[in-house]
């Protein structure tokens, strides 16, 4: 089970009332390489990977939920005081017609989230390679998002999230090395 703590992993400040950015940020909320897909992918794979790497999948999956909450916070803050007209101008008219200001698991183009965004192959190397690719794709998405804003506070939070993808990728790469069982044999340490 999980416990909740009343704090974000990293402070989220949004200083510019740029409603259109909320639409773009949704890519990391309900998009193919977003935080929801990441969390569900790892938390689902953890049941059937070798024992030695369950902890990595479990904990990175959990951290992704904290990142999902940070993205939600950005979207929430950017839309909470927007009028229907503001939303229309920001390209969120269709979203408003269906959801008002409720967050919805969809990508930046409004395509609803689907389980087909990730897989569980049951082969640990295949699954880890997917995970590494997922981290690199999420890192790229953060870069494209950073490229579309000049809000330095928002960039600060997005840069933090981008760096976390790098760390996760590093850990998954280490998992591959662990499963190869070559390290002890070569006496690297």
């Amino acid at each position, binding site marked *: 089970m999980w416990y909740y703590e009343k704090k974000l992993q990293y402070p989220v400040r949004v200083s510019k009332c740029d409603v259109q950015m909320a639409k773009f940020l949704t890519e990391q909320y309900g998009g193919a390489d977003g935080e929801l897909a990441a969390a569900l992918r790892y938390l689902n794979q953890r049941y059937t990977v070798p024992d030695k790497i369950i902890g990595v999948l479990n904990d990175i999956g959990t951290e992704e939920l904290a990142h999902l909450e940070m993205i939600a916070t950005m979207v929430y803050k950017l839309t909470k005081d927007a009028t229907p007209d503001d939303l229309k101008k920001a390209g969120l008219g269709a979203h408003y017609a269906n959801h008002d200001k409720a967050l919805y698991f969809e990508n930046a183009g409004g395509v609803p989230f689907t389980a087909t965004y990730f897989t569980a192959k049951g082969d640990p190397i295949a699954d880890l390679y997917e995970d590494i690719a997922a981290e690199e794709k999420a890192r790229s998405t953060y870069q494209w998002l950073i490229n579309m804003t000049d809000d330095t506070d928002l960039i600060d939070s997005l840069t933090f999230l981008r760096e976390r993808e790098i760390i996760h990728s590093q*850990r998954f790469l280490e998992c591959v090395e*662990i499963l190869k069982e070559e390290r002890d044999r070569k006496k690297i340490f």
Partner: protein
Amino acid sequence: MKESTAKYYELLHEIQQVDFALVELNLYLNTHPMDQQAIMQFNELVQRSQMLKKNFESMYGTMRNFGESFSPTPWSWSNTPWPWQV
């Protein structure tokens, strides 16, 4: 609103710093279970995190649910602000 005082953000930020290092070390130790120095650092930070949260909760109400924190009277867990509101 006492929640928006500078002190609130300062204490919260301190917790975020310590807890971030704990996440980072936790992930590292999952693939480096024999690194004694990192384990020592982890345990020291666990202690610091618990102290900081106890202090924070005494001023701003319960921070952790489902029995991870003691409750004052009245029940303060469900009070605002929630993380996405601050």
